[in-house]
């Protein structure tokens, strides 16, 4: 039998009218000028998987440039009958195994190096040099995202009414005064700010740009103003050392890398996931120790007793079961008696952190009177 076809020899774009004859040993291309070309049986391959579309095409092996074009797709079946290997695809995995392993290995090494060495190193440098305005902006966005997410978990729908204590009120001034006392000795740059959020979780954390976030649930657990002072001093330590900013920049770098892996370098997913990443990240042991050391130093400087804070950490430690649910930024690994012991051993202060009036006002910061609701 003869199959009418067009033959392209792969050397020029010229079409040759041809007749194909099929043998079990191979395929013979008979050209009009008398030339004969023979393809081996195992070399005959479909260019595209067989379909009903016309014309269809054949190639010689996987690397050859020659092509046969056959107008009538009903020949496909007959060709498959003659050459069972015709539909078998090229085994690209085994052909490229060396390259895949070589470059794949290099890629893994390079990624591990980048994530474990380069990104933390760079993140530290970047965080320490980030303009304050940028840091505050990042902190504000992270704050909004975290409050929104946590409000969702607690099924609180309105985010606007979750912030306790309007700026300029008396209680706000009490908090500002506390912060002011606990600031490092020489600092002109950071202006930390306490935000109390009306959610029931017992937690606190520091965000980039000096936002210190306290939850109502934590305030309710506190029994003494010096417990609050201890927590705020610890978080101010994170602020002073820019721990949160470092965590954030590191997360940013890692997110971009992950985006690259998954084919999303527009960064959409990476940026969208950042707030979440920050929520799930935690400080290193070293960072916690730095924050604790800072806290003791400023508390001693201000003659504020750290013993109540030590007792509070002890209570938290005994309450370990609930620690799992605590936010990672505060969920400190050495939340053990280590910290309580450290505070107890090094405290030299003797006085309370604030007046009783101030303490009562802060404790009740989230309690709304009907008049408050009206004026807001």
């Amino acid at each position, binding site marked *: *039998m003869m199959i*009418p076809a*067009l033959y*392209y020899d*792969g*050397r*020029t*774009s*010229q*079409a*040759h*009218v041809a007749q194909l004859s099929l043998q079990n040993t191979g395929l013979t291309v008979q050209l*009009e*000028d008398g030339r004969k070309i023979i393809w081996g049986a195992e070399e005959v391959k479909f260019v*595209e998987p067989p379909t009903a*579309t*016309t*014309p269809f*095409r054949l190639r010689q092996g996987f690397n050859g*440039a*020659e*092509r046969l*074009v056959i*107008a*009538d797709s*009903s*020949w496909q*079946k*007959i060709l498959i009958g003659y050459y069972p290997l015709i539909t078998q695809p*090229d085994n*690209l*995995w085994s052909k*490229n195994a060396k*390259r*895949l392993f070589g*470059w794949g290995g*290099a*890629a893994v090494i*390079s*990624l591990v*190096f*980048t994530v474990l060495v*380069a*990104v933390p*190193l*760079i993140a530290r*440098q*970047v965080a320490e*040099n980030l303009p304050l305005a940028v840091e505050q902006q990042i902190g504000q966005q992270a704050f909004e995202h975290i409050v929104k997410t946590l409000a969702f978990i607690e*099924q609180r*729908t309105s985010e606007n009414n979750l912030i306790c204590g309007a700026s300029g009120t008396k209680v706000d001034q009490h908090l500002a005064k506390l912060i002011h006392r606990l600031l490092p000795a020489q600092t002109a740059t950071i202006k930390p700010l306490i935000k109390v959020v009306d959610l029931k979780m017992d937690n606190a954390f520091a965000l980039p740009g000096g936002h210190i976030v306290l939850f109502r649930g934590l305030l309710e657990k506190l029994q003494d103003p010096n417990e609050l002072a201890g927590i705020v001093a610890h978080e101010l330590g994170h602020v002073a050392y820019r721990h949160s900013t470092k965590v954030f920049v590191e997360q940013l*770098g890692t997110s971009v*890398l992950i985006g*690259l*892996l*998954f*084919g*999303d*370098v*527009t960064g959409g997913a990476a940026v969208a996931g950042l707030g979440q990443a920050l929520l799930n990240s935690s400080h290193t042991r070293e960072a916690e120790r730095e924050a604790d050391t800072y806290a003791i130093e400023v508390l001693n400087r201000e003659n504020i007793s750290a013993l109540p804070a030590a007792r509070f950490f002890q209570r938290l430690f005994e309450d370990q079961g609930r620690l799992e649910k605590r936010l990672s930024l505060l969920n400190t690994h050495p939340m053990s008696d280590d910290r309580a012991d450290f505070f107890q051993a090094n405290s030299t202060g003797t006085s309370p952190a604030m007046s009783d009036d101030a303490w009562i006002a802060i404790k009740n910061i989230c309690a709304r009177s009907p008049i408050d609701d009206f004026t807001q």
Partner: protein
Amino acid sequence: MDKKPRRSLVTMRHDLEDFTDNPRAPGVSGTAASAEKTAAPSGDTAAFSFSGKRGALFKIALMNALLTILTLGIYRFWAKTRIRRFFWSNIRIHKEPLEYTGTAMELLIGFLVVLAILVPLFAVYEGALFLVSRSPDGFQIGLQVLYAFALLGFFQYAFYRMWRYRFSRTTWRGVRFSQAGSAWKYMGLTLAWLLITVGTLGLAYPWLRHAQWKYRIEHLHYGQQPFAYGGTALDLAKRWVFVIVPPIVILTIIALIEYETLMALVEYFPPNPEQNFDQLQSITGQLAWVFATIGLLYLTIPVLYIWYRVRELNFVVNQSGLAGAGFRARIRSSAIIGWIVVTGATLFIFVGIPGGFIALAFENSPALQDLLGSWSIGLIILGFLALMVISSVVVTVILSNGIIRHIFSNISIINPAALASVTQATATKPEFGEGLADALDVGAF
């Protein structure tokens, strides 16, 4: 072999001639049967055509989207290859389809190369650049601009490499295309003209486009035969005038009419507490029509720009030649804009509305959250993934398919006989895929 098609030699030859306009290229002696049709005289034209079926593309696009999500993106190299094979093999030039010979493996290895070499370099570069930019304040802006330019240049480089790879994997009549030239030079000329374009507030844009097209086309080869380009920047400028002049004129007129009110607005900012708010209100009230006009301009500029780009494409195709053959394009911007609008509307109906509904349902309904409990987060993620699949399929099947179909149904070749005996290229082709372009997300498919 009983079922073999039984047809006369004459009808078979007609079949052949159906998909090969000119089977008897010079030098091939004809038979009696083929002599019935006379060889196409020079000056004849032959059309491009697109034979893709939406149903077939839909199946490919759906499988691609599902598998890409299931494999966390790794399948994208196979997905891209399948889509390209579909489009390439359905573009018929003079009835003979293009063939895409690239493989997913090449794209995967190209990606691994980028990961291995570029990722650490990029991380260090980013960090170093940031630290340098921190030191003296004066340098900062300059370095920022430099950084933006470097990034843009990188994109241009990746873009050129991407097309080099794609052309090297494209054959027609068994002869492959190739994009010669240097990606660095292309980057250089683009950045130089971009600088001038920014400096002239967009007036030099046609010169930028001309330089890019000329370099790309004159370095494009079919076999050993280079393409030629005969257009000038002035030709493009004539078309660009219609985009750039109306907004400038309108904005100038606005500025002249409302000069005093605008100055009052400028003086108002930055606002300080002493200024009264009523003053701002009266200013903005007076400028309402100005804001409306600018808003309207904002909406028309994308349309005008697409209109320009289509006219540019038609012109560029018409000015291109290959081995004595020419091209004629009649692509309509209305069709392109039409497909964009249809795609937008479809996305709105099938992605925007369900997405908004899901978000609202969870935002406002604690009851629903109670009911679903811990499943609610899972359901939101599932819904989000489903919407991703839908939008990917819609964009491929409606937008890409619509635009490619329209473009390749509206181009024809003048004197196609000239393409009958072009010799194969001997130059080596790039070994790996377009890793950099993939990493930078250049190119739609």
